[in-house]
């Protein structure tokens, strides 16, 4: 079994988000980059499914050479090899196209992504890869089992879950619950340095759109404190002042 896991290089979850160039660019100064947390879940599940020699896990990233530490981290967690498509991941359409092109040329049984990247939150890449490859895509799963031929996935729906079965190739985007994120051990970190990392060129595709400006949320007004001894006042305030209940 061959599993392809798509990983995105994103700012650490504690990052304070600021912009430069008249709010047209994300300010990367002093920002620590990590493997997108949801992609780590996808990778961890892929590694579990391949345990005991049942298969291999390839991680793929669309990014410039600056993303290599993130790719090495994924190798340290336990991926067998890595591919970097050498291009700035300008949007989901571009990124999904590159990954789909690579997957077409290399035979994978399943392709796993995180439910979304924590920078642009598009939740687009997995389903777009599915469409480019004309194979099923199951978005936002919280469970994935595979018996060698058929995969059984639990997909999140409003107020519950849906169980889906797929025989044949598929793409899925993984959320919490699919696996516990694995933490690299020392042996993993050492071996990651020598695992294969192939760099390939991006293929051209037209642009459909771009981010032209960023905004930060308007600061909120100051807090109105209510004495805990008269906490019941809250209900009245929410009803008459805030008018939300």
């Amino acid at each position, binding site marked *: 079994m061959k599993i392809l896991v798509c990983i995105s290089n994103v700012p650490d979850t504690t990052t304070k*988000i600021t912009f430069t160039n008249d709010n047209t660019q994300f300010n990367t100064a002093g920002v620590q980059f990590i493997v997108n947390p949801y992609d780590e879940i996808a990778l961890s599940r892929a590694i579990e499914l391949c345990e005991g020699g049942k298969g291999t896990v390839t991680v793929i990233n669309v990014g410039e050479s600056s993303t290599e530490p993130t790719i090495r981290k994924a190798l340290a967690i336990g991926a067998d090899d890595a591919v970097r498509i050498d291009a700035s991941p300008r949007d989901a359409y571009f990124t999904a196209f590159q990954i789909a092109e690579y997957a077409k040329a290399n035979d994978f049984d399943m392709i796993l992504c995180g439910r979304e990247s924590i920078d642009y*939150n598009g939740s687009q890449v997995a389903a777009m890869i599915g469409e480019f490859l004309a194979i099923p895509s199951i978005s936002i799963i919280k469970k994935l089992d595979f018996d060698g031929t058929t995969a059984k996935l639990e997909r999140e729906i409003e107020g519950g879950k*849906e169980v*889906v079965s797929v025989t044949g190739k598929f793409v899925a985007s993984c959320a919490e619950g699919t696996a516990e994120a694995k933490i690299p051990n020392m042996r993993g970190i050492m071996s990651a340095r020598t695992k294969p990392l192939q760099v390939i060129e991006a293929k051209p595709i037209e642009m459909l759109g771009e981010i*032209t400006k960023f905004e930060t949320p308007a600061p909120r007004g100051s807090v109105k404190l209510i004495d805990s001894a008269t906490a019941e006042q809250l209900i009245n305030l929410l009803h008459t002042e805030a008018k*939300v209940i």
Partner: protein
Amino acid sequence: MGLEVYMSVLVYVEQVDGKFKKSVFEAVSYAKAIANSQHTNLTAISIGNVAESELKELGKYGASKVLNVAADQLKNFVNQAYAAVIAEASQKEGANIVVLSNSFSGKGLAPRIAVKLKAGLIDGAVEIPNFEGGFSVKKTAFSGKAFAITTLSSENKVLSLNPNAFGIKENPTEISIENFSPDIKPTDLTAIVKEIVRATDKISLPDAELVVSAGRGLKGPENWGMIEELADLLGAATACSKPVSDADWRPHSEHVGQTGIAISPNLYIAIGISGAIQHLAGVSSSKVIVVINKDPEAPFFKVADYGIVGDAFEVVPKIITALKAHKG
């Protein structure tokens, strides 16, 4: 500028057990506002078994036509097949803007429609498009820490609307129902829905208007009774912080924050949650935030509209009593 002709707008109306949810009417209201700004009509597409009376409800929010796809093979949601149907409908209607809710199903559907139509996709839109000098839409980014204005240059466009971002706006319109028989390829139906489990007695968190959320300050899962009682009285959904779902006190589906889900309810009540930057990211677009925490230094108070410094176990019962009195 403004020379591009928008022939019509198509909105996908997701049904659950033959009914439309509030988020669908919100998407229809949003799509109608776009159609109005372009002096064009709004067509809806419904897939699955929905009664005529329910389809007619869409007219209340501005749809002048609904394409009704009642094919039995499409009874369950399979995004590959649904995307093909919606793309076919958009071509038939000459619609170059397709709108849908940014729901769990919408997230699996919109990208496939976009690839089929070679359309730029804006997910999680929070405002109506600005047509001045092109076509740009504001969407959430960095898990709620920022917004990104995205400009599309493609002829076709797909927009998914965040729940509670636009609101429901009535716009009574005469609506016609047209049965639509799309081309269904068996190869689009290889993913098979085996089981659907839905709690009908609970309010779904992603599109809830009111949310009661609790964190480690509750000390253990056995103390969630008062949180659920408060939520029930308010008609609110329950949510939790990451440490709580990590410890399995509550299911992952309740985890709000940067690595959980982002929500934007009208009211978010945070009880015993300190307000780490990752948590705030997921809830900061809530309209009104109430924080109850015994630590006056908790960072959450900085973004709260109302704050109560106190022990949750003393404060929450008082609020429950007041709420019961309020409701009479």
